[in-house]
């Protein structure tokens, strides 16, 4: 850790907090609770056209003929674009960065030129006067696709004569981690336990489908107002349009859910192309089916663990083999794979580790970011393996974990020393305590208990050299403005920034307005992904607010005839706590300051720790800024006759460093608990020869109010994180341990395990039958 970071954390450890840590009403809450918040789909413009995307209905083929002449001839159709109209243009699929880094050979075709690689790959774009005319034009496009042999699972994709989806060999990413000597470690083991665990394709299922509105303004700038986690795709859009970066502006709006599914480019590319071509405003709103078919999914993984243990429960060696289905285009697969590889040993101290991970292209839908980002799939495997080992050794599952937990000061498998608190054990103890006594079985209904602990990064991979900027200013009436490009995807990202500024400037949250999510006029903050928004942008707001505070305090000291170190700011006042006669309102302070030429704003950049990439052969080196630790514990009831699983109680205990807004933190934990329950029990996208056959909420079953268990949240605060006031991250970590905890509880209830998610009633009944044989 840098000296700067160390001194920051020491300074933060003793701060008395007045507003941070309190469950304040979020700044975005009233608008949403009264229905007055405007989402991207609620904006219209005069003369607006309506867009549609024509997609391939098969997964692997050659486009033999595409005739759009009848669609173009239909009155009211303004524009039909095909690949012929977009010579030499490609779209980036990489992570947007502030530093201009981009991986080679990850671009994709914007519209199909010849080869179709996945179901739903776009063939043509339409813009028409009404949505109905756009639909009609869609039906008038004639095309012929020659089916080509496809490949739909990773094992087949690696066969010598497999169809090649991604040159040269379908392998789109590979990582190795080598620590210690696994041969020696296995030699020292009394038992070696081997298992393979499988996860499925799943869908983000945010309630607001992808939507946006684009127009070209009088300066030739393509403006796009849309629902996205990442306004900084504007650079990739500009590249695809062939215009300078400053000619594309992306304006966010409140996002109706993201979960990683609005991290990649969605509608903005099509909107930009149509607006650029027609020079008219264009709106594109995905239907639910468009959304199911049109954006990347969570990777199915197979994760094989081979673990050496002594009879007294010490892990001596671990080998993990990881395979992920990356689908037809690269997108974020290599990064998701890296997250899985780094997370694969879990929060356990293991001296000898060998991990081999590969992401493999198929003709399935491409896979990319999803809350948990590979680390969730890793946890499904390592926590199931921990229970299987404990069972084989006849050890208590929780005691077995305790004998192997990482402790504060330990290193990860890549040799990175974790500088913050490692409270996996503390979280597990609290979660188990909260569950209380396990209920008794009743007849054929068996009760099971399961836990899963985890280690999960927050903040981006450190060789991305991630930065975030924010601007904080005080108006002459003492009210505060925060400007930052951060996108708010529903977790209260913007409000948390306001709470930090309010704390440091001594005003109420009601006196703060946050302007966010505009790539042209708000300082660029990076993405709302990777559990980084609060950590990164929170630190930028912290720095800007602190710098502004210092200037205000110095001016107040002058006005009040006091020393700066005597001045405090709170409740809209600058005052000397020990001397009631020395006090003035922030309003007076700001207006007096303004008349004296005092600078009333600050722009600050926060830089995450920068490192070089890890060693390619050993995987050794720092990978992430820091990690969150926690545990989820559940009791389930399994009807052994029907196979039905009911989650009774669900407890999340997480050390999040410092809660900025504990109510919002609970919201993340509760939401993660139910999303993880769907992952464990009911959610699965079914692809047949690469074609999605379950593109609706009546086929793809996310948990409803009927499935809600008793959910309890336990927030631990070590104040040891790298975020503002010692915060860690919780957005993704809240989800990660839930599915494996449920899987372990089901295994506990029925005495045997379902190794592939989701754990449907059919699989439960089958597992029980097989165990009885």
């Amino acid at each position: 850790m840098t000296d700067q970071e160390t001194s920051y954390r020491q300074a933060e450890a003793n701060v008395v907090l007045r507003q941070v840590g309190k469950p304040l009403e979020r700044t975005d809450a009233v608008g949403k609770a009264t229905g007055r918040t405007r989402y991207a789909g609620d904006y219209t413009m005069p003369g607006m056209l309506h867009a549609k995307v024509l997609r391939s209905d098969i997964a692997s083929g050659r486009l033999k003929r595409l005739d759009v002449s009848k669609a173009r001839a239909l009155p009211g159709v303004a524009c039909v674009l095909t690949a012929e109209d977009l010579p030499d243009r490609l779209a980036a699929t990489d992570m947007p960065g502030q530093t201009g880094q981009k991986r080679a050979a990850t671009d994709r075709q914007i519209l199909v030129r010849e080869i179709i690689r996945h179901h739903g790959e776009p063939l043509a774009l339409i813009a028409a006067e009404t949505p109905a005319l756009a639909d009609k034009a869609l039906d008038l496009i004639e095309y012929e696709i020659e089916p080509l042999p496809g490949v739909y699972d990773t094992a087949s994709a690696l066969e010598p004569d497999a169809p090649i989806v991604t040159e040269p060999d379908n392998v789109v990413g590979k990582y190795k981690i080598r620590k210690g000597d696994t041969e020696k470690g296995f030699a020292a083991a009394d038992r070696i336990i081997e298992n393979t665990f499988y996860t499925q394709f799943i869908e983000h299922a945010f309630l607001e489908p992808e939507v946006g509105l684009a127009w070209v303004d009088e300066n030739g700038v393509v403006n796009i107002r849309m629902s996205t986690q990442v306004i900084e795709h504007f650079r990739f859009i500009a590249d695809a349009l062939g215009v300078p970066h400053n000619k594309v502006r992306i304006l966010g709006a409140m996002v109706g859910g993201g979960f990683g599914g609005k991290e990649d480019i969605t509608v903005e590319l099509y909107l930009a192309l149509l607006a650029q071509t027609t020079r008219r405003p264009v709106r594109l709103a995905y239907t639910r089916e468009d959304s199911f078919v049109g954006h990347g999914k969570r990777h199915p993984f197979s994760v094989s663990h081979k673990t050496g243990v002594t009879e007294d429960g010490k892990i001596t060696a671990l080998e993990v083999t990881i395979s992920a289905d990356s689908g037809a285009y690269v997108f974020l697969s290599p990064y998701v794979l890296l997250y899985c590889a780094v997370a694969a040993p879990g929060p356990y101290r293991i001296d000898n580790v060998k991990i081999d991970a590969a992401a493999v292209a198929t003709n399935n839908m491409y896979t990319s970011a999803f809350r948990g980002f590979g680390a969730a799939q890793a946890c499904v495997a390592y926590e199931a393996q921990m229970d299987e080992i404990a069972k084989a050794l006849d050890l208590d599952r929780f005691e077995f974990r305790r004998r192997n937990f990482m402790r504060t000061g330990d290193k990860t498998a890549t040799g990175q020393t974790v500088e913050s608190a490692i409270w996996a054990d503390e979280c597990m103890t609290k979660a188990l305590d909260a569950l209380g006594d396990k209920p008794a079985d009743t007849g054929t209904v068996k009760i099971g208990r399961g836990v899963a602990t985890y280690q999960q990064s927050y903040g981006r991979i450190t060789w991305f050299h991630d930065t975030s900027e924010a601007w904080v200013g005080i108006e002459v009436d003492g009210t505060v403005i925060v400007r930052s490009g951060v996108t708010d995807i529903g977790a209260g990202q913007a409000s948390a920034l306001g709470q930090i500024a309010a704390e440091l400037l001594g005003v109420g949250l009601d006196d703060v307005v946050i302007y966010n999510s505009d790539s042209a006029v708000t300082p660029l903050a990076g993405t709302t992904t990777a559990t980084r928004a609060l950590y990164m942008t929170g630190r930028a707001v912290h720095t800007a607010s602190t710098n502004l505070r210092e200037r205000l305090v110095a001016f107040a000291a002058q006005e009040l005839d006091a020393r700066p170190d005597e001045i405090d700011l709170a409740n809209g006042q600058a005052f000397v706590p020990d001397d009631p006669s020395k006090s003035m309102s922030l309003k007076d302070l700001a207006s007096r300051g303004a008349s004296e030429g005092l600078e009333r704003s600050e722009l600050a950049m926060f830089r995450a720790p920068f490192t070089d990439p890890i060693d390619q052969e050993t995987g050794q080196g720092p990978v992430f800024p820091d990690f969150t630790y926690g545990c989820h514990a559940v009791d389930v009831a399994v009807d052994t006759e029907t196979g039905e699983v009911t989650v009774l109680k669900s407890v999340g205990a997480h050390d999040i460093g410092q809660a900025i807004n504990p109510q919002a933190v609970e919201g993340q934990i509760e939401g993660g608990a139910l999303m993880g329950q769907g992952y464990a029990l009911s959610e699965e996208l079914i692809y047949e020869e690469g074609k999605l056959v379950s593109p609706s909420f009546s086929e793809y079953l996310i948990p409803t109010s009927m499935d809600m268990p008793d959910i309890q949240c336990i927030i631990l605060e070590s104040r040891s994180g790298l975020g503002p006031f010692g915060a860690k991250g919780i957005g993704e970590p809240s989800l990660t341990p839930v599915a494996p905890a449920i899987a372990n509880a089901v295994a506990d209830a029925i005495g045997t395990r379902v190794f592939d998610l989701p754990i449907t009633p059919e699989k439960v009944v089958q597992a029980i039958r097989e165990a009885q044989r």
Partner: protein
Amino acid sequence: MSSEKAIAVQINGIGRELSAPANETLLDCLRRHGFFEVKSGCEKGDCGACAVQIDGEPVDSCLTLAWTVEGRSVTTLEGLNDTDNPHPLIAAFLEHGAVQCGYCTPGIMIAAEALLRETPEPSDDDIAIALSGNLCRCTGYTKIFAAIKQAGEVLRAGGNDD
């Protein structure tokens, strides 16, 4: 385009005339006339984001043709948000932090208001059933249940005034 007609309808207590073609859903019609608090989530009756009340009954406006509400009364979330007398659900959702991305909120409020009129003191099961047609992906429903119960308490305490 099929022929349009003007339909007379009470929306949130105010008489309106809305023009709509025969095949237009109430969802599309309301949004076209600026009632953006009615959200589009699936257009198949699966998610409940578009829920409104017709004569006090919650329905999915995506499955309702606009022409069928001629002469009837439609309530959207805006109708619960009388400036002088906002429905207690709104304050309860704010107090409990029952709102995250907010996209499902209007439909859930509509379903909850109908529930509380029928069942002033709802059990968890009552709430679960009443919201079973409204998907939420952010909150895990926990805070929504707590908010609905609190709004019920407020309504019961002030029930004599109604």
